């Protein structure tokens, strides 16, 4: 018995159909048909909830006789705002009110970010200081302030400190220039003089010249290995040119010093107490978080980096500037931005003490006057969301750049 083996060449089988797998993946992701079914169910539920809400809103609005749409933005507001960066009167529109509030929010946020950064860095350095007493004081500052609610601190500054200050006639003055009273902080107001334009031009020219000088010095350093000392020239440029312009064309600004007249101050500009309280609370509170971030960042740089720098013959200052700080910044920057964002969002607590920020004048007064809750709250949330998302987009771009520069 012999088995005849046919020497037939093996035919290549056709590849299995990819259609079904591809369809599954397109419809349900990696989970396949099950994912698709789940997804379908999920969307149906969402749509059902959505239509239910829309129907309810229609009925409720009709019952309460509230109009909808954004037409209210064109109507006259009819209330005053205690602080406005752009000209505003009660006869302006709600859209203008929105702008005024937004600018006030941005003002207090930007100033708060600046102050919080300065205080935060100082406290972080204090906490890292080899001086036992100073590091303990800085530590106590951080522990106390970050374990009290921010709103508590804002109201504390407003009620217990600023409103408890004496009236303008007995105000606390600093060198007869700054006056602090229960009406707020009165500071000299800068007034532009004809000398301002040439002054600014001179300043810009000085900065450009200084940058060019730095560029030249760096080129010399890299090409010929010559180290030029340029800081005296830079200093001379930055001080000399504007000074020259001031001498030739007159002083750029004069300051209007506030003077007490009767029961109040005339001249100068007044920072309302709500602004001062909010700014103080926001910056001192956020500074505690910034201090911890900065401290963590500096501690995260390995000791060996500093030692490697000195073994290369760099000065201590150069080691810090060229080796330690750039590495620390990489760790510090993302959480720092997060804190800046938090500060901006927290500035909405202004509504508790009546500082006219976006939430206070728009989601507060405008909402109670028009009753158009949906539009107003949507706009307000949208503004904050826009700020947040923009910042996080920038931060993820930054993270991508860093990871690329560190990558293989």
């Amino acid at each position, binding site marked *: 018995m012999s088995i005849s083996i046919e020497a037939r060449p093996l035919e290549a089988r056709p590849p299995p159909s990819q259609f079904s797998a591809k369809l599954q993946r397109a419809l349900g992701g990696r989970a396949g048909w099950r994912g698709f079914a789940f*997804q379908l169910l999920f969307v149906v539920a969402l749509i059902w909830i959505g239509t239910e809400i829309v129907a309810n*809103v229609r009925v409720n609005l009709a019952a309460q006789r509230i109009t909808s749409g954004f037409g209210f933005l064109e109507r006259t507001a009819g209330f005053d705002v205690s602080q406005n960066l752009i000209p505003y009167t009660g006869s302006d529109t709600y859209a203008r009110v929105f702008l005024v509030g937004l600018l006030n929010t941005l003002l207090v946020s930007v100033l708060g970010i600046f102050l919080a950064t300065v205080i935060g860095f100082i406290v972080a350095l204090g906490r890292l200081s080899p001086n036992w007493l100073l590091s303990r004081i800085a530590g106590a500052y951080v522990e106390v302030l970050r*374990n009290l609610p*921010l709103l508590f601190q804002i109201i504390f500054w407003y009620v217990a400190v600023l409103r408890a200050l004496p009236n303008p006639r007995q105000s606390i003055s600093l060198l007869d220039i700054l006056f602090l009273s229960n009406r707020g902080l009165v500071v000299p107001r800068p007034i532009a003089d004809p000398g301002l334009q040439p002054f600014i031009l001179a300043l810009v020219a000085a900065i450009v010249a200084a940058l060019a000088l730095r560029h030249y010095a760096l080129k010399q350093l890299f090409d010929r290995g010559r180290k030029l000392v340029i800081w005296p020239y830079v200093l001379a440029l930055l001080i000399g040119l504007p000074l020259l312009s001031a001498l030739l064309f007159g002083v750029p600004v004069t300051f209007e010093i506030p003077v007490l007249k009767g029961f109040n101050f005339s001249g100068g500009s007044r920072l309302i107490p709500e602004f001062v309280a909010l700014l103080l609370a926001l910056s001192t509170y956020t500074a505690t978080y910034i201090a911890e971030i900065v401290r963590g960042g500096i501690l995260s740089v390995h000791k060996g980096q500093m030692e490697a720098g000195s073994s290369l013959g760099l000065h201590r200052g150069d080691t810090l500037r060229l080796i330690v700080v750039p590495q620390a910044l990489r760790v510090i920057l993302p959480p720092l931005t997060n804190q800046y964002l938090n500060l901006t969002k927290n500035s909405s607590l202004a509504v508790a003490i009546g500082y006219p920020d976006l939430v206070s004048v728009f989601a507060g007064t405008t909402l109670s006057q028009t009753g158009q809750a949906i539009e107003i709250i949507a706009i307000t949330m949208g503004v*904050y969301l826009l700020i*947040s998302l923009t910042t996080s987009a920038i931060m993820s771009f930054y993270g991508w750049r860093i990871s690329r520069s560190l990558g293989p």
Partner: protein
Amino acid sequence: MSDIAAPSTFVRQDLVKERSAPIKTTGFIGFVRTQLLNSPTNILLTVLGLLLLWFTLVPATKFLLVDAVWQGTDRDACLAVNAGHPVGACWPYIKAKFPQFIYGFYPEPERWRVNLTFLLAVLLLVPLLIPRLPDKGLNAGLLFIAFPVIGFFLLHGGSLISFAIGAAIVSALLFLFGGGIRTGWRALMVSLALFAGTGVVIAVLGLEHDGLPLVDTRQWGGLLVTLVVSVTGIVVSMPIGVALALGRRSTIPLVRIFSVAFIEFWRGVPLITVLFFATYMLPLFLPAGFTIDALARALIGVALFAGAYTAEVIRGGLQAVPRGQSEAASALGLATWKTTALIVMPQALRHVIPGLVNSFIAMFKDTSLVSIVAIFDLLGVLQSSFADPVWATPTTSLTGFAFAGMIYFVFCFGMSRYSQFVEKRLNAHRRN
């Protein structure tokens, strides 16, 4: 060989004068020398620090203790004219307002219910916080499932029948979570015992014929509301957070997109706008004629907000669980949801305890915002007490802030220390 015997000029003939002892670097003097006064800059910094302390601690002590008024019945005691010296803190004011700070306007004869709730919370919470004690799962189940039901019944009131129904549902749930017919009996027994015990205490202390009298949430206030809002926020945010964190890691595209959008939305807006949303917009979303309690509205807002943050914390924990764990589970033949529920999630949750405590601290501090939407938490009660003419003195507000500040500080500081302790324990294997 002769020069060896010769007297060497190189050998010292007399004793060297003794050197002075090295500068002491131990003990208090040494500490001051090395830590505070070791260089001119440091001396300057030390002087600066001492000045800072002098200008903060001394006035504070003077205000709180030395110049303080301790006895009195109304504002007259706290006026400088009557006290005969500059007046610091006005403690009689705190004494008079203390019940309000803790209970708000909760009716006085019913306050034992609040105390009982606090006591139960402490009894269930403390064993959970001590790592050495066993039965964490059952303990957590009682605290997060049974306690909210008991607490709601105690604080809000209601008929005993509803309490019994709640007891039955909760016990059944715990029985199920405890493992059903095989291992759930103990959970069932403990839960029933807890409910029965509470029932007995209620019966002994003051049961009206068919239950506890209702106390409207508008009468709640003070620390009670602060705790209710923050605890509810964290308890409700847990399931929301777990769901969103799993959704964000899901392979189903629409679920993932929805989770990301939801999380980023709530994290991108300030809490106060969320509370405005809950106060003004949420009622419009509900069917006409369906009213919702003001406190409940705020709680919904807080829970959504906290849920988004908790989701991010939990996602961090999920990422910390090595991939091999879920692969091993699949290799053993576990289904996806079992892998998640039995293998991945328990490990992830253990990792995120410090993060959760931190977000609870943030939650606790943030609850002060509900005072803006007219709910009287500790801060709201404090502010309204300033308006009381009986106690209006120049130092009333500072006294109130000092007292409320101490309460907030004790809670937050205690929790942050606990979170550090847990973190250290979790990272014990990494210590070198």
